[in-house]
């Protein structure tokens, strides 16, 4: 089924939207979650949560690229869960889960100032990545958007792992300079 048809199902609040999305992008989203969480059950949970978030987001949203829209939801959910898991390891125990659940009760989860700053930071990153040469930009987003391993990136682009590592190191230095220039200390 074409993406536009799936989005149409979401807008009509037809529950087939979720099964169609899961069929088409289940493996894709699972791979992103697994890259971040390295845990099968957690990754499956995140993917299932992704469908729920997509259901709540459409309407009003109408993504241009459904796959990437889902990818963004998955990676954010995965990161949230990773923080919870890390907190548990640090001794957070059940309270970390409780706090995680309580976040859902907050209005948006963050205050306005933080949300504004986050939006500005996203714009800053957007400009930076767009300014990069194609190959450097590709390698950077595979690593820091899709959370792929250096070995996977090297295979994807036919480079050596060392080459990818050097390229990333160099791009991180550029990013640091860019962030400083934009006022991020």
């Amino acid at each position, binding site marked *: 089924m074409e993406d536009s048809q799936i989005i149409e199902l979401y807008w009509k609040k037809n529950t087939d939207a979720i099964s169609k999305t899961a069929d088409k992008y289940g493996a894709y989203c699972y791979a992103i979650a697994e890259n971040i969480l390295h845990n099968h059950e957690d990754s499956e949970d995140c993917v299932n949560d992704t469908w729920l978030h997509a259901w709540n987001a459409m309407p009003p949203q109408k993504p241009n690229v459904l796959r990437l829209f889902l990818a963004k939801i998955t990676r*954010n959910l995965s*990161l949230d869960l990773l923080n919870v898991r890390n907190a548990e390891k640090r001794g957070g125990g059940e309270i970390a889960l409780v706090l995680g659940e309580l976040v859902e009760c907050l209005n948006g989860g963050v205050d306005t100032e933080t949300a504004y700053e986050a939006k500005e930071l996203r714009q800053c*990153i957007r400009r930076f990545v767009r300014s990069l040469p194609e190959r450097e930009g590709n390698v950077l987003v595979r690593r820091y958007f899709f959370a792929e391993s250096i070995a996977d990136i090297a*295979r994807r682009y036919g480079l050596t792992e060392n080459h990818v590592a050097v390229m990333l190191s160099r791009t991180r230095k550029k990013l640091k300079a860019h962030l400083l220039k934009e006022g991020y200390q």
Partner: protein
Amino acid sequence: MNKNDLFRAFDGVDDDILERSELSTALRRPPACRKWLAVAACLVLIVSLTGGILVAEAKEYNAAVDFFKENGLSTEGLSRSDVKAVYRDITSQHFTYDKTAEVIERAVPGLEIDQRQPTPEELAALWDRNVWRNTRLEIGFSYRVDVREKLDEGLGFDVLDRSVLECYRDGGLLWTAEFPGLYVEDGAHTSAGTAVWGHNDTWSSEQPARSSVARVDENGNVLWQRQLDHGFEREYIAAVVDNGDGTWAVVSRGDFKYLCLSQYDMDGNELFNYVTEVGNYGIWNAVRLGDGYLVQLGNTMDGETARLVKLNREGDLLDTFVYEGEDCDYTITDMIEFGDRVYLSAYAVPKQKEKGGRYEIADVLDYLFSNNIWEISSEELTPMVRDNYTAVLLLCDPEGGAPETFYSVKGSLGGKLAVNGSGELAWDVESVVNTFFSPATSSFTIGGTCQVFRYTFDGAGTLLRQEDAGETVPYHR
């Protein structure tokens, strides 16, 4: 701001860049039906069919039957319309009808090259090698680039210092050359030494991306280096083609949508250049074709893996070919000019109904996911993957670019083409020998190993021998 904030901020990256980053995966896309079970040698070549011939149906059928008899072809299993279609296909030398391949395969022993299944001992030996490393020994001329960087105190980060290019012949080092300030991308051996190309170092979108071409003699001396300047903000060289008359054709891509052809003499003077808008296609390869050139354009997101354009010496776009079959799609992996003809290495996969995802293995994945299979042995998976692929060697004549004949190898992918030290054409065929299912890996879902078989042809295109090259290459989709 902490590291989590920064990680989340990558959500701001534009979709077109995220999509672009997915292009370089070896391949793509999702489900259809379980067609892989029935996939066979559907080797069809469509070369812009135009026009048609109206003849009396009976007359054409009779002529077709006569043709079959004269040439020892069998009509077994063919309908009346199939017989006519195959007849038209062969006599017009277009080879556009899918049944043509079957008829020819039955009639010409050896056209389909036999490739035995690997023995358990060979599989064990393959496993012992580190299949994740590219252990291939290059034949003919090959190049290896080492990029050196240095800290720029003013900028506070590393910038390019120089590229060191090593030239090998049949695996032996011939020479080394250094290129200060140039990211060397590749080199090509020509009758007048080696053509080397690359681009400058950039760290800001305000800096234009400039490409340069250089000439290196047989001892590794850099004779000259010229920067291209055709008015683009970003220009990348895709290939340098030896014209055979003391000039080089430089094929470059400008601002992601223009194809630029420039001619250089052996003193580094640009004789002229011509720019054609071709759209958002990468330029994947280029070879000389008669008095002009055959250039492969590609866009993996759109499934364009076998689009060729024919240019004349002046850069005018004369024709466009898209190689595809009724039931299969082609991916051209390499091209070379040899013995006055152009050879294309390619592989065919069953045509899928939908785009997106991991296109080539969509039916295999559909079967696995539909049956909730998350673990599967190589013994079970490998035959499914092998059934999906057919390596194909296409030959184009120097004038029209149309194919004259082809070889095929089932269960394999067409690999590199090269001229070996004996002046013979070597075609590498990558036979899928083991696989593993890895649904949790983002960059591929089925991985494995291909054993490289090398098929050698003489100048007339006759198959001389086939041999196990003793090499492996990874398979990832």
